């Protein structure tokens, strides 16, 4: 009788570290880690040696020193006497402004183009695909300089608006002036009582949200659908409009006017800002259009056929069946395109727009000679923005995933 015995236990041999799958993963990781740390310390050591050679240290004190340069577009008070830190902040806000406005324009345009691209109208579909291919296949930097050239070289100088028979005229009832120094819009001026108007407007928006919720509940409970869109538009506009006239028009527009050789008053949008924003928006909108198209096409045809056989009308099929399903596919790549737009806004330097790369990573870097610190801060800013956005995408994916089983 022999009793079953365990296989003879192998004694550990050094070569097993590389050949035995039990240990191989571990030893591979240890080797990688050692190499990684060695390279890292090598780089740090080199940096320390180089800094010592150049008599430099690593310090962020320059952020509290006087900047000494002007920034022509600023959202917060800033003069050349402000600190480098303030200059960086102005730049950050300028970057965010371009990103924000650009994303809005790009989304609207992209939705519009993407849906028209799917149109059954042959010529419209072809025109839209020409738009998409044209913008997607040419570098964004080229678009930025092209739009900038268009705005600066082919628009009239302010003095062309002068005289009894001017060469150029303002658009929209003498309210908007497009010049080679930028575009001037009328600015709203708030008189006494205007805040009541704003309050009223805010309340109407809240009211319309409640109304839409009520209408949805009504639809789910009873099956009756109210003309939600028109009623909510009326709820938002009418009370404010009535109050506006009842209080004697407390908000007026301040029109830009020509004084000397330039326009005064009104809102002045510089060409650098306009060119950067518009070019980024056009470029990104082509990508968004493709995302929208792909999202709509990804909803299987059976869905819309089933909805049609239930007796839904085409616009209801779109809003109730296709869009909710398409949005789940559209939103994550849409947001990563917003991120791309934000990162591409660092091309501002090509048109002289002072974004964070122009202030912190440009003039401040050159004036203080703090390349290492400025670049670290700059990269930190962009990284923070992108991590914020990608964590939002992850959150969206988690909460809107289709729950299977």
């Amino acid at each position, binding site marked *: 009788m022999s009793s079953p015995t365990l296989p003879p236990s192998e004694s550990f041999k050094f070569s097993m570290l590389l050949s035995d799958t039990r240990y191989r993963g571990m030893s591979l990781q240890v080797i990688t880690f050692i190499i990684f740390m060695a390279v890292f310390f090598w780089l740090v050591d080199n940096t320390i040696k*180089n800094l010592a050679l150049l008599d430099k240290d690593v310090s962020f004190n320059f952020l509290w020193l006087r900047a000494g340069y002007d920034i022509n577009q600023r959202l917060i008070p800033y003069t050349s006497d402000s600190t480098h830190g303030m200059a960086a902040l102005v730049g950050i806000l300028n970057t965010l402004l371009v990103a924000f406005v650009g994303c809005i324009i790009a989304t609207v345009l992209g939705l519009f183009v993407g849906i028209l691209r799917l149109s059954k*109208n042959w010529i419209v579909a072809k025109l839209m695909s020409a738009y998409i291919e044209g913008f997607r296949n040419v*570098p964004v930097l080229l678009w930025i300089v092209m739009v900038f050239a268009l705005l600066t070289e082919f628009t009239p100088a302010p003095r062309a608006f002068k005289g009894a028979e001017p060469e150029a005229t303002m658009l929209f009832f003498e309210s908007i002036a497009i010049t080679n120094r930028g575009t001037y819009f009328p600015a709203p001026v708030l008189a006494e009582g205007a805040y009541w108007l704003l309050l009223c407007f805010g309340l109407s928006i809240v009211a319309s949200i409640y109304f839409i919720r009520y209408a949805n509940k009504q639809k789910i409970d009873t099956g009756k659908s109210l003309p939600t869109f028109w009623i909510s538009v009326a709820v938002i506009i009418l009370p404010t409009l009535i109050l506006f006239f009842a209080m004697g028009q407390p908000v007026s527009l301040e029109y830009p006017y020509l004084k000397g050789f330039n326009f005064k008053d009104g809102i002045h949008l510089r060409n650098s800002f306009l060119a950067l924003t518009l070019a980024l928006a056009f470029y990104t909108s082509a990508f968004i259009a493709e995302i929208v198209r792909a999202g709509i096409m990804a909803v299987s045809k059976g869905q819309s056929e089933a909805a049609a056989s239930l007796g839904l009308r085409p616009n209801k099929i779109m809003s109730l069946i296709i869009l909710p399903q398409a949005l789940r596919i559209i939103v994550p790549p849409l947001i990563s395109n917003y991120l791309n737009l934000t990162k591409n806004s*660092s091309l501002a330097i090509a048109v002289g727009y002072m974004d964070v790369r122009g202030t912190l990573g440009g003039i401040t870097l050159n004036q203080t000679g703090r390349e290492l610190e400025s670049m670290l801060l700059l990269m930190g800013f962009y990284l923070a923005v992108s991590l914020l956005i990608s964590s939002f995408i992850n959150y969206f994916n988690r909460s809107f995933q289709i729950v299977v089983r």
Partner: protein
Amino acid sequence: MMTKIAFVRKKEIPPSAPPITEVGLIGWLRQNLFSSWLNSILTVLSVYFIVIMLWDFIPWAYGGHWNTKSLRECLDLDPDVACFSVLTARWKQLLFGLYPAEEYWRPTLTFIFLLLAIVPILFPKFFRFFWFSIIYPGLAVWLLWGGSFWSISIVYIGLTLGALFFLTLIRRYLKNYMIAAILAFLFTAVFFLFISSPLVGLLNVILPISLPFVESLKMGGFTLSLIVGVTGIVASFPIGILLALGRQSNLPVIKMICVGFIEFIRGVPLITLLFVASVLLNYFLPPGTNFDIVLRVVIMVTLFSAAYMAEVIRGGLAGLPLGQHEASASLGLTYWQSQRLIIMPQALKISIPGIVNTFIGLFKDTTLVSIISLRDPVGLASTIRADQKWNGIYWELYVAIGLMFFIFCWGMSQYSQYLERKLKTDK
């Protein structure tokens, strides 16, 4: 009693022709352009838009001047048409940058060889010429930068010897791939450190073949775009695959390094990385090192697009059903065998559109090098405008540059659609 039937048809009526409004040109127009009032409005608007665009563009482009000496001369002749003379005068610069004029044949030949080298990769029918694609990178470097032929080919000799050493070890003496790889690596390192330079010296004496050296700062125009773009594309693909595998790996240290790298690179704009390449890289290297600016840019662009490539391929890997991994494991395939034979072919097929999009993005991003004052076409446009003769010329240059990029990028996207159709195995 007989019922009288007035008429019984004996023969089937031949089908009548469809109404004229439903077939032919009219039918097509009605169905595609004027199916509803909204569609009709859209059609009219689109036609109007196309007409006014062409109305301005065609006379401008068609009547353009090609042979004037300066912009002023163009404007004197006819201010309303294009002045393409700038292209006639400066096309060489747009294509080759500051490359010495008597050496133009070198970038041209490199470009022709490039077309030949991609054929075996793009079309499997010509795969037997793949050896040319392998020697092409070295040939291109030698042709573009010049110098001794042997200092480039020694790299190939060294790598071939290393590979042969590895194969002999595996076939004859060793079972373990990892030890063999480490030994082969050491062998190659010894070759390059100690043997290669005397060997190059010897070969130079025996058979001197060399081209005049051209420094990197002379490169420019589309030559530069293609150098950066093509090198980036070729190098970022394998790095991207490795990073994607690293990110999916179950070894935590490797996974962490890959995730950190990918997220860092994807989080910052390429411009900042290029600035690191041009300003900061000297801080990170041993004091006194200063290596070629084009090489630095190529490395940064490659790392940048490798991170994007990794995410695209990871998407493809995640799209594969888990059963594929399990089935290949249960067949007893090793990790690398299953990746090579089962996982990667499928994952790469799913991610073709994303991969090509990354390539296109990379090629377009090569224009950003103009911001660190290298002379790519966009940078050259402002250099040309700085010349008094062409001061104030915009559209002719931009249209030409835009068209060049469009042709390359659009061609790539068309190829990817062809590949998708060809590789489609289901339905």
